[in-house]
Structure formats: C-alpha cells, structure tokens
C-alpha cells in the first residue's frame, strides 16, 4: 500500500500550490514573492477601498472591491511586476520559476 502511494506521488507532476498575498494598508504584503509556473496567486483585499493587481506585461488584472479575494494562475516563468491601477504607489513583483 505504502509502496503504491510512493509510486503514484513519484509519477505525478509537482503539485501546484497557492501563494497568498494581502492588500493591506495600501500595500502588497509581501511585496516580493517566489512562485512556480502553475501556482495560483491569491490576493486578499483587507482594505476598505478597492484595489487591483495589474501585471505590467498584461498577463493578469485582478480587480477587487473592499474585503474581496481574487486569484490568477501563473502560466509562464519570469519576473512579473504588478501594481494597483487605482493607487499606483502600490507596487510588487512575483518571481516565477519553472
């Protein structure tokens, strides 16, 4: 039984994870984070105003009303810079590896 589980795990591709980022006090936290292709990034807006997580390369644009949560799946490797369209003083980046 144990051997079968090991075999299944070994055969399966790496399990995609979820990376959590807060929008809090008009900032992304953490502002720099590492992730892998296939991971889901989840932003939780903890402020009382709306924010966006908008990629400078156009790869995602998550628009969140106050107290809402939204996500995107990372599709390609590389560093992605993103910001809030409503408050462009909010800047952050995700370093995506294969």
């Amino acid at each position, binding site marked *: 039984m144990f051997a079968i589980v090991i075999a299944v795990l070994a055969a399966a591709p790496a399990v995609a994870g979820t990376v959590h980022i807060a929008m809090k*006090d*008009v900032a992304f936290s953490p502002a720099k984070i590492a992730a892998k292709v296939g991971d889901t990034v989840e932003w939780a807006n903890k402020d*009382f*105003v709306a924010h966006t997580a908008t990629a400078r390369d156009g790869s995602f644009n998550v628009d969140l009303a106050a107290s809402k949560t939204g996500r995107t799946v990372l599709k390609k490797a590389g560093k992605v810079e993103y910001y*809030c*369209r*409503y*408050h*462009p*003083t909010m800047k952050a980046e995700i370093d995506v590896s294969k």
Partner: protein
Amino acid sequence: MKLATLFCAAAFACSVAGPSLAQGTKPTDPQIAHIAYTAGQLDIKAAQQALDKSKNQQVRAFAQDMVRDHTSVNDQALALCKKLGVTPEDNDTSKNLVKDADAYRAKLASLSGAAFDKAYAEHEVAYHHQVNGALESTLIPSASNGELKSLLQTGLKIFKGHEEHARSLASSLK
C-alpha cells in the same frame, strides 16, 4: 508650474493655519474631522463635474475612482466620528477649502473637451498634493485620538496613490 504649485501649497498651508486656528493652537479633533471630510466631499464634487463634462474614458475612469474611494473614506470617517461621539466642527480652513473649490469648479465650467480634461487632471494633481501636505504637516500630527490619527494615516496612503494616478493621467493628456 513649479512656482504656481509652491504658491498653491503655501496658500493652503496658510489657510490650514488660518484665523480660526490662531497662532500656535492646533486644530481640534472635531475640526480635523471636518477638514478631512470636506476635502473628500470637494474632490467628489470635482469628479462629478468631470463625469458631467468629459468624454475621455481615462478621465472618466479616474473620476469614478475618486468618487468611489473618497466616498469609502468619508463613510469610515463618519462611522468613526459616531463611534467616538465626535461632531465634526466647521472652521475657517474648511470654509476656505469650499470657497477655493467653488471658484475652481466655476473656472472649469467654462472649459470643454481636451482643455477641460487637462485642467481637471492638473488640478487633481495639485489638490491632492496640497491636501496630502496638510495631512502630513498639520492634521495627522495634531490629531489626539489614536483611531482618528490612524484613519488619517491610511487616508494619506490612499490619497498619495491618487496623486500619483493623477500625475500619470495628466502626463498622458499632454
């Protein structure tokens, strides 16, 4: 432009330290709440004028952002005043803000098209810059209630975001 901005900032600083807030006396929490709330309401009025007059999608989107954010901040401010039992108190700084904003809206009313868009965007840069300066130098340091101070500090971060947003809007309209 730089000189004009400096002059505006200086004029605003003077109005914040104006007659009702005599030499050396700090504004009280009820006065600070009134000034901050009034500044937000005036930016909402400016945005409503832009929504009435402008056909530029970027300008309209910015104005909608201003209505949404300043409404949220002012709702928080009113809820906090209620919780603390603070009644916002009108004062000369608030009155001067209203007078200046009324005069500027009248000036903008005579413009249209690209000229209106440009003037509105540039005014939003200057206005947020002035209010942010007053928050930093006078209103936040003078606030005695911790929750009011904290809300003003969060407001300042939001409004600094607006100032940068307005700057990029204004430069895209040139």
